[in-house]
């Protein structure tokens, strides 16, 4: 009965992400790559998951990811999982489809799950990951996405559930590039109640510090929890995540091991490129970092940026302080 225990223990107040999909669709790989920094190639050796696994993550937002093995059938009565309870507390249901495989089975499974979950929890966000698209050509990816979207919405209409009722989103993902982080960023963002406040703060920061684009990243998973309201350019996002790696890795190289000082020191990294772009990274509270990009900066504004970032940090601390009460 230990499985039941795992599920019941989860605290109710933290948003939960439920990861589902047929077996071998790539759920465990996603978990390992996004949340445990595993190298994508190493995921080849992951064993098949046989029990529900739940993990909790603490950053500015606390959330937990629960992974269910693909072999389980939720509609058989003799289950040790309380399905009703399972879907009740879920913020986002992530359904993974292997796009390189025949996906009709997956779609009917998804349809059943949506119908079931919607009955229990009409507010549920269903996020469909069309996964492993690295193996598909650019054109074929879009075709596949269109086909899957069409089929899913047809079935929903047949079941008298409109697109408008079920909050359904589709993402093309692969663990071999940044798309999986991007998708998870969007999924997690929907679970953050303070998101509008963050966005507002970031917008103000942008307009007063000449930032072209700023992201608020979770350093460990490289998911961005918020960004300013200008459109996200994929390239900028990739460069920003790479920049986090550079800063953290370089700093770790000179780790002394012996003493645990410098806790009050915050990580700060600034890099200038030939074309006048400057990348900024400032560590924030609770494992978050602000990463931003400034174009054509003149040297005198540096101090201003630092000051504004400090104000932003204090803002975050205040939001968090209120949450803690």
């Amino acid at each position, binding site marked *: 009965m230990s499985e039941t225990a795992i599920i019941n223990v989860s605290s109710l107040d933290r948003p939960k992400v439920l990861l589902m999909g047929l077996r071998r669709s790539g759920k465990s790989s996603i978990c390992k790559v996004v949340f445990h920094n595993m190298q994508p190639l190493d995921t080849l050796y992951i064993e098949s998951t046989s029990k529900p696994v739940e993990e909790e993550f603490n950053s500015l937002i606390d959330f937990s990811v629960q992974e269910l093995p693909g072999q389980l059938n939720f509609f058989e009565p003799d289950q040790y999982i309380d399905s009703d309870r399972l879907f009740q507390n879920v913020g986002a249901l992530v359904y993974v489809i292997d796009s390189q495989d025949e996906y009709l089975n997956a779609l009917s499974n998804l349809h059943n799950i949506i119908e079931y979950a919607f009955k229990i929890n009409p507010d549920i966000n269903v996020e469909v990951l069309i996964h492993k698209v690295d193996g598909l050509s650019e054109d074929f990816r879009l075709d596949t996405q269109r086909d899957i979207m069409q089929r899913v919405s047809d079935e929903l209409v047949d079941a008298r559930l409109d697109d408008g009722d079920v909050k359904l989103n589709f993402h093309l993902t692969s663990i071999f590039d940044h798309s999986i982080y991007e998708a998870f960023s969007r999924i997690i963002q929907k679970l953050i109640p303070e998101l509008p406040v963050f966005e507002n703060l970031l917008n103000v920061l942008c307009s007063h510090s000449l930032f072209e684009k700023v992201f608020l990243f979770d350093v460990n998973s490289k998911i961005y929890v918020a960004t300013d309201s200008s459109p996200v350019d994929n*390239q*900028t996002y*990739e*460069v920003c995540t*790479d*920049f986090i*790696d*550079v*800063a953290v*890795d*370089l*700093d*770790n*190289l*000179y*780790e*002394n*091991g*012996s003493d645990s*000082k*410098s*806790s009050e*020191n*915050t*990580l*700060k*990294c*600034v*890099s*200038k*490129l*030939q*074309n006048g*772009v400057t990348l900024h990274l400032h560590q924030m509270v609770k494992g978050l970092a602000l990463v931003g990009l400034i174009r054509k900066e003149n040297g005198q504004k*540096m101090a201003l940026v630092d000051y504004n970032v400090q104000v932003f940090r204090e803002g975050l601390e205040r939001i968090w302080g209120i949450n803690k009460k």
Partner: protein
Amino acid sequence: MAGSSRKKLLLMGRSGSGKSSMRSIIFSNYSAFDTRRLGATIDVEHSHLRFLGHMTLNLWDCGGQDVFIDNYFSTQKDHIFRMVEVLIHVFDVGSKKLAKDIDIFQKCIKNLREFSPDAKVFVLLHKMDLMQLNKRDEIFNTMMKTLEEHAVPFGFTIRGFQTSIWDESLYKAWSSIVCSLIPNMTAIQNHLKSFAEISEAQEAVLFEKTTFLVISHASATAEGDENLDPKRFEKISNIIKTYKQSCSKMKSQLKRLTLHGHNCSAYIDNLTGNTFIMVVMPPREAHEGTFCDDDGSVIVTNIRAAREWFEKVELLEG
């Protein structure tokens, strides 16, 4: 003078041992993933690389298929083995035909003895990532022992490295290879050392600009270094190389990087036209009470001041 600073490097090894992959990563800024696109090398591919301004590396990437190799040792041997400064022989550690690999190595050495007896010989045991972690040293040692037995009769001392394109070991090997070609190494070393002392830096590391291979490094204080990762220099190369790739996504290049971290403050900046320098300062608390160089303006000024001097040092003849 221009003639004497051209260095010929031979890259040898059996087909599929990874010669072109490592060349592309080090000199053409490929990522380890991109090397999948490379096809087999036909005959010899020449690349000319400017290195440290007045030095040109002529890299001869010799295709490793049997047909070509037979030619190298018969009709082309004069052409291939003349005027060689460095022979880099790459072995695939997972190779099934070890005897053949060694046979080719021996023939290489024999020809090298005949045409350029002063050449330096480096042996890279490549694709080490495929071996089990605890067996790597053992494999390496036995292999090196056999190879030395073959090389010593011809009067060559060989230096060996374990390499893999998936980690930083490749940078260490190539950094050593390239450093062995720099004539004024000691001068550079000395000047870097005094620069580190003057700047009160924990460490100063000098990199070549395009490859980001470590040319030299110096620490102002000898103590405290044992705690640090001994592989940190090649790791920096690896990190910055990856960063340079992401910079090229923005259609630009790295100019400067400043880091204030938990463990150090680091500055990476252009030094001369051909080099980058990384200056590592101790973490901020370490010099409490004294003048606190928060923006790093002092170190930036120091680097700027040293620029002209290092340009002269680079041009010194050994």
